[in-house]
């Protein structure tokens, strides 16, 4: 299939029968369009300065950094357990993944082995957040194509996922879930009840949503061929996650570098062919089914046992013990005052976030705070391909491409 740019060239080079209105204007006729920073179609705070020829985009220049909050700098001044709330605010559509990715990074640094129950609970929560992340992205593609109802149906399900998060951590969006070494408390019967209800109700809703879109002729015509990228370019641009898989590369951190006992489970990596908006949509939708399967498997095989690793040096003791037990009080004091011994070293840990490989590069010099912490934010890395992906496409396709890339402003700007 010809790319939009080739189409233009074809139009300009073809014979005189072409409608003159469709012919390319001269460069001096191009005009500048400011898409953003606060445009409802961009779903986040980023600006694109577009050079337009009629409805075609000639070039795009993204400006980012509108919600930069200097997390990497702040992290150098905070003890390890206080960095979890910062990670919430990276990709705020799936904060538990960020929280647990951070915990696992620190656990790698400290050499902590977590019990199976912790691993499985983490899988359940991370896959729940992946579902909530993907359903936002997929339904927003629907909104941008003009189909609003799918969005409303699945947002109810997101509320139910947030109810489960609330039951576990007390918060809905910025969850600050879990602790280094495990969880602060065991999963409650109410959370289990809500999870069970979700597992029964959600597949029906998701099937209905897929039925609305996946073979819908209007939706297909609108999204097939919009914002395509080849596998080679995607790899060169550092794409990861669903956007890379839509181009046909089966790279998934959960399989390549299993963490949190993901290797105990069987699941598929859905891949696409063309790397366009439609393929990204389908890959995300298929991943939701795989996530559901993982949640069900992990939930059915959830082992009994402790909900945190036995590391009194790093895991805050229960408050009851702090008041009644000398050792617990000492540990509590040492953890809060930053007197625990942290090994020196450099560690990189990656998890499969909602948008791709979310990496944490942590340098410790033995102090109570990280010496250097760098977040490898998948959004930040692949969003730079946006000008190339939209070049020559229609403005309405550019909006679709943006939402199908699932660029989350919080993760983009850190």
């Amino acid at each position, binding site marked *: 299939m010809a790319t939009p740019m080739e189409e233009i060239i074809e139009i300009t080079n073809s014979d005189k029968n072409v409608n003159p209105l469709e012919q390319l204007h001269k460069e001096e006729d191009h005009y500048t369009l400011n898409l953003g920073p606060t445009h409802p179609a961009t779903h986040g705070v980023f600006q694109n300065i577009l050079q337009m020829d009629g409805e075609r985009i000639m070039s795009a220049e993204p400006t*980012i*950094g509108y919600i*930069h909050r*200097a997390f*990497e*700098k*702040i992290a*150098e*001044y905070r003890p390890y357990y206080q960095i979890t709330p910062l990670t919430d605010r990276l990709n705020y559509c799936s904060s538990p993944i960020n929280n647990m990715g951070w915990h696992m990074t620190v656990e*790698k*640094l400290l050499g902590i082995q977590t019990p199976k129950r912790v691993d499985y609970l983490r899988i359940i929560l991370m896959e729940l957040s992946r579902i909530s992340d993907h359903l936002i992205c997929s339904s927003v593609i629907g909104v941008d194509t003009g189909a609003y109802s799918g969005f409303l149906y699945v947002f109810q399900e997101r509320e139910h996922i947030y109810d489960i998060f609330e039951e576990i951590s007390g918060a809905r969006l910025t969850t600050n879930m879990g602790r280094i070494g495990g969880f602060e408390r065991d999963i409650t019967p109410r959370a289990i009840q809500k999870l069970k209800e979700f597992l029964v109700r959600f597949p029906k809703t998701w099937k209905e949503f897929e039925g609305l879109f996946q073979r819908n002729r209007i939706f297909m015509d609108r999204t097939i061929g919009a914002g395509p990228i080849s596998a080679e370019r995607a*790899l*060169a*641009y*550092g794409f990861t996650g669903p956007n890379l898989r839509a181009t046909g*590369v089966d*790279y998934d951190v959960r399989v*390549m*570098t*299993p963490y949190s006992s993901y290797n105990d489970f069987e699941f598929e990596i859905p891949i696409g062919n063309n790397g366009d908006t439609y393929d990204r949509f389908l890959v995300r939708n298929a991943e939701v089914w795989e996530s559901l399967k993982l949640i069900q498997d992990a939930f059915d095989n959830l082992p009994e046992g402790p909900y945190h690793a036995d590391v009194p040096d790093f895991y805050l003791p229960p408050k009851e013990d702090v008041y009644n037990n000398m050792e617990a009080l000492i540990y509590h004091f040492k953890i809060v005052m930053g007197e625990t011994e942290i090994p020196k*070293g*450099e*560690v*990189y840990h*990656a998890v499969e976030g909602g948008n791709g*490989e979310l*990496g944490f*590069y942590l*340098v410790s010099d033995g102090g109570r705070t990280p010496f*250097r912490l*760098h977040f*490898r934010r998948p959004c*930040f*890395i692949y*969003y*730079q*391909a946006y000008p190339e992906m939209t070049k020559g496409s229609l403005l309405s396709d550019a909006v679709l491409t943006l939402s199908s890339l699932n660029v989350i402003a919080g993760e983009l*700007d*850190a």
Partner: protein
Amino acid sequence: MTQTATELVPHIQSLLGNDLLDAYLSYDMTTLVVKSNAVINALKTLKEDEKLDFHFMTDLCGVHYPTNKGLELGVVYHLHNFKTNIRIRIETFFSELDPRLETATTLWPAANWMERETYDFYGIIFEGHPDLRRILNMDDLGMFPMLKYNPLEDQTRTDKNDKMFGR
């Protein structure tokens, strides 16, 4: 599971020669320390050698060790080979008085924004970069905020009363 690149180190050593200053295992990843004037050459070798084939740039970031006199600033690259599933880390250090490094955008377009970010926060100038501007901070910031010399917040602020709770 991810393999470590330990068994590849002799091969890398033979290709890079004296440009390779050090190679050690840090947790699960092999770390190479490379001379700063040869880093792009080393990355190119790691990317294009058939046996190594580190074709994917995972990450690029700066780091600042103010006590490491003469070699204060560093840039850390993370590469990944999807086929053999081996990750590798390349570090290079140079003086903060002359923070210049060749750009990696010639090898990976992904390095573009990551180098801009590194410039933005550490003031490292990537020579040959097509568009080296600040990316996350405002253009007239006038400092490089992630350098260790710059404290988190201006400690001389007087508009907040911190008598009770401290800073």
